[in-house]
C-alpha cells in the first residue's frame, strides 16, 4: 500500500503544482512517468469479471503526452472516431475480411516511437464510448510495458502470468477502470521467456478465449515494434485485424514496407498516420470523404 500512497502523493502534488500551463504542456517520455494513477478495488465490479480496479487520470495521461491537450481534444477525438469505425464494422461482422477473430485488434508499428501506445490508448478510449461495445486493452508489449507503466500496473499480474500459469483465467488478471466500457490487461511479471510465451499455443488459446467470451468485446493489443522483435509478427498472426501506426514525416518508407512483409497478407491490415500535420487543405481532406476509411476501399 505504500506504493499507492506514494502514487497518491505524487498525483496530488502534480495536480496542485500544475499551475502554469507550462507544466501541463510538458511532454515527457513514457519511461519517466511513474505510478500516477490510483489503484484500488471497486466494490461494484462488473459482471463477475474482475474485482481489480484502476482509475484513469486523464490529466496525467495528457502530461505524459498520451492524450491530446484540451485545445485539441475535440479535433483528435473526431479523428479517432473516424479511425475506429472500419475496425468496429469488421469486428461486428461487416465487410470482406470477417473472421472469428475480428474483434482481436493489434496496434503495431515498424519501429519504436511511432505512436503505438498513444494510438492504442486513444483507440481504446474512443471505442469505450461505443454503446454496443466494450474494450479490453491488453499490454502485449512485454519488453517495454508502456501501458502497464502509464496506468501504474507494473507490479500487477498480467498477460505473462496468464500464459505461464494455466490455472489462472482472464478474470484473474483483467482490471476494471473507472471509464465505462474500458478494461485493462497489464503485461504482468517480467520473464526471460516472454517471447516464447507469446508465441506459444497457450497464447493462442488465451486469445481465442478472450475473443469468444464476449462478442461485443473489442480487444486491443499493444505490441512491440514489428522490426525490432520476433514475437510481434507472431502475435499479429493471432489477430483478426492489424493496425500499423506510422509517424508522419518520420518513419522511413523502407521500414514500414519491411514490417508489412512480415505480416500475413490475408489479414485485415490498416494504417493510421500519426502526427500528420500541415498541408494547406489538410483539415478539409482529413475530415471529409476520406476514401481510406473503409477497409474494402483500395483506391
Amino acid at each position, binding site marked *: 500500500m505504500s506504493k499507492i500512497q506514494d502514487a497518491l502523493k505524487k498525483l496530488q502534488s502534480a495536480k496542485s503544482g500544475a499551475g502554469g500551463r507550462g507544466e501541463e504542456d510538458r*511532454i515527457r517520455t513514457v519511461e519517466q512517468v511513474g505510478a500516477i494513477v490510483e489503484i484500488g478495488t471497486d466494490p461494484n465490479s462488473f459482471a463477475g469479471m474482475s474485482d481489480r480496479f484502476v482509475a484513469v487520470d486523464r490529466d496525467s495521461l495528457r502530461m505524459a503526452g498520451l492524450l491530446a491537450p484540451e485545445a485539441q481534444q475535440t479535433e483528435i477525438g473526431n479523428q*479517432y472516431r473516424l479511425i475506429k469505425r472500419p475496425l468496429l464494422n469488421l469486428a461486428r461482422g461487416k465487410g470482406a475480411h470477417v473472421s472469428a477473430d475480428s474483434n482481436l485488434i493489434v496496434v503495431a508499428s515498424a519501429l519504436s516511437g511511432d505512436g503505438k501506445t498513444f494510438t492504442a490508448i486513444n483507440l481504446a478510449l474512443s471505442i469505450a464510448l461505443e454503446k454496443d461495445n466494450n474494450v479490453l486493452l491488453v499490454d502485449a508489449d512485454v519488453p517495454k510495458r508502456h501501458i502497464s507503466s502509464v496506468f501504474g500496473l507494473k507490479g500487477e499480474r498480467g498477460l505473462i502470468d496468464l500464459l505461464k500459469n494455466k490455472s489462472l483465467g482472464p478474470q484473474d488478471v483483467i482490471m476494471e477502470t473507472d471509464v465505462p466500457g474500458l478494461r485493462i490487461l497489464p503485461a504482468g511479471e517480467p520473464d526471460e521467456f516472454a517471447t516464447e510465451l507469446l508465441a506459444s499455443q497457450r497464447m493462442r488459446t488465451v486469445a481465442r478465449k478472450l475473443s469468444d467470451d464476449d462478442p461485443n468485446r473489442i480487444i486491443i493489443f499493444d505490441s512491440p515494434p514489428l522490426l525490432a522483435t520476433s514475437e510481434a509478427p507472431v502475435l499479429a498472426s493471432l489477430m483478426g485485424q492489424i493496425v500499423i501506426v506510422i509517424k508522419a514525416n518520420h518513419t522511413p518508407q523502407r521500414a514500414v514496407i519491411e514490417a*508489412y512483409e512480415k505480416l500475413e497478407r490475408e489479414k485485415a491490415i*490498416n*494504417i493510421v*498516420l500519426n502526427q500528420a500535420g*500541415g498541408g*494547406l487543405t489538410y483539415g478539409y481532406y*482529413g475530415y471529409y470523404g476520406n476514401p481510406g*476509411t473503409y477497409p474494402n476501399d483500395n483506391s
Partner: protein
Amino acid sequence: MNQVIEEFVTVLHGAWRFRWMAFLVSVLICVVGWVVVFGLVDRYRSNATVFVDTNSSLRPLLDDLTVAPDVMRQVDLVRQALGGRPQLERVARETGLYLRAGTTIETERLLARMNNDVSITTNPRRERNLFEISFIDQDPKMAQTVVQTLLNLFVEDSLGANKQGTQQAQKFLRDQLALLESELIKSEQELANFKKANVGRMPGETGSYFDRLQSEMTALENIEGDMRLAEKRKAALQDQLAGENTSLDGNAALQTEVDVQIAENRRRLADLQLRFTDMHPDVIALKSTIEQLEEQKKNELTQLSQSGVAGMVSDNPVFQSIQIELSKVNVEIATLSEKRSTSIRKIGELRGLIDILPEIEAELTRLTRDYDVKHSQYQALLQRLEVAELSESAEENENIRFKIIDPPSLPDKPSEPNRRLLLAIILLVGLGGGGAFSILANQLKPVFSDIRQTRRVLGLPVLGSVSVMETRERKIRRAGQISSFVFGISTLFVLFVVLVLFEDAGTEFIQRIFSGIRGI
C-alpha cells in the same frame, strides 16, 4: 495548383529532416569555392584599334585589267592566320613570354593559353575596316607588348602574304606553262609527221584525185573504144584475108602502100625501058628503088609471119598488104590492151586511195584540233601569267594603309576576374547544392507525409490520420529548430558580405598561401 503546392510542401517537410547535413554541404561548397575565387589571379587586358585603309588611287585603273586582290578577304585570312601556331610562337619569342615556360609541357600550355587570350575582331555593326586586337595577361606591361607585337605582325603579314601569294601563283602558272609547251610541241610534231606521210592526200588536194579518177576512167573508155574499133578492123581484115587467096591472081581489094609504090615504080621502069637501055642512070636508080621496096615488103612479110599471122606467107601483093595491115592492127590491139590493164590498175589504185581519204581527213582534223586546243590553252596561260606579273607590280605600288586608331593600352585595372560576382555565384551554388542535397536525401530515404501518399505507396487502406499535438513544448522546439537553422544560413550570408568587403585583403592572403604552397 493546390496539389502542386501540397506536394512541394511535402517535399520540404521531408527535406527538412536533412537540413543540417545540407547546411554542411552548402558550407563546404561555399568555403572551397570562395577560396578558389580568391586564388584567381588578376589579369589585365590591353586593347588596340586599327583602321585598314584599302582605298588607293590605283585601284580604279586596275580593276578591269588585273586580278584585283580582294584586300578585305586577305585581311580576314590574316586574321585567321595570326592565331596560328607559328605566329604565336613568334610573338611569344619576341615579347619574352617564352621565358615563363620551362618544360615542353609548359610551353604547350602557354601557347594554348595564348590562342585563347588573343582576340582579333571586327565589329560587324560598325565600320568593317576597324579591327580590334587585344590580349589579356597577368602583367599589364606584357599585355601591351604582346598587342604591339601582334600589331606589327599584322601589318607585316598583310603586305607579305599577298606578295607571297602572287609569287606562288606565278610559279604555278609558269610550271603549267612549261608542261603545256612540251605537249604543244609534241602535238605539232605529230601533225607535221602526219602531213608528211600523207602528202597529196590532204583534203585540199583530193579534188585532183577525183579528177584523175575521172580522166582515167575517160581514158579507159577511150582505150576500150579504140580497142573495139581495132577489133572490128581486125575482124574485117581477117575476113578480107580469108576471101583473098594466096595466089597472084585474085582481086586485090586492098593494097598496101608498098605494093602501090612497087606497082608504080614498075610502070615507070617499063616506061623508061622503052626509051632507054638498062645502062641509063634513071633506070638503074629506079631499079634499086624497086629493089628496096621489094625488100621492105619482104621484111614486112617476114615480120607478119613472125608475128604469128596465120603463117600465110604469100607473094600475092594484096594478100601481103592485108596481112601487113592485120599485123599492124594486132600490134595496136596489144598495145591498147596493155594500156587498158594499166588504166584499170590505176583506177583501182585511185579508188583504193579514195576510200581511205575520209579516214585521213578525220585524222587530220583530230590532230589539227588537238594542236589548236593546246595552242589556245597555252596562249591563255601565257596571258594569265602576264596579267599576274602585271598585277604584282601594281600591288607593290598599292598601299594597304594601316592607321592605328588606338595604340595598345596599358591597363591599370584588372579586367578579370570579377570577384564579387563570382563570390555571389558561389554562394548561390552552395545554397542550391545544399538544397538539392537535402531533396535528394529525402528522395533516397522517403517517409510518409499524408494519407494519399501513404495509400499510394503501400496500397493499404488508411484509417485516418491523427494530428500533431501542438503543445507549447513542441512549438518551442520547433521554433528552436527553425531559428537555429536560419541562424546557420545567415552566418553564411554574413561571411559572404565580409568577404566582399575585404576582397583585396582576402585575395592577398589566399594568394600568399597558394604561392607558399607552390613554393614547397
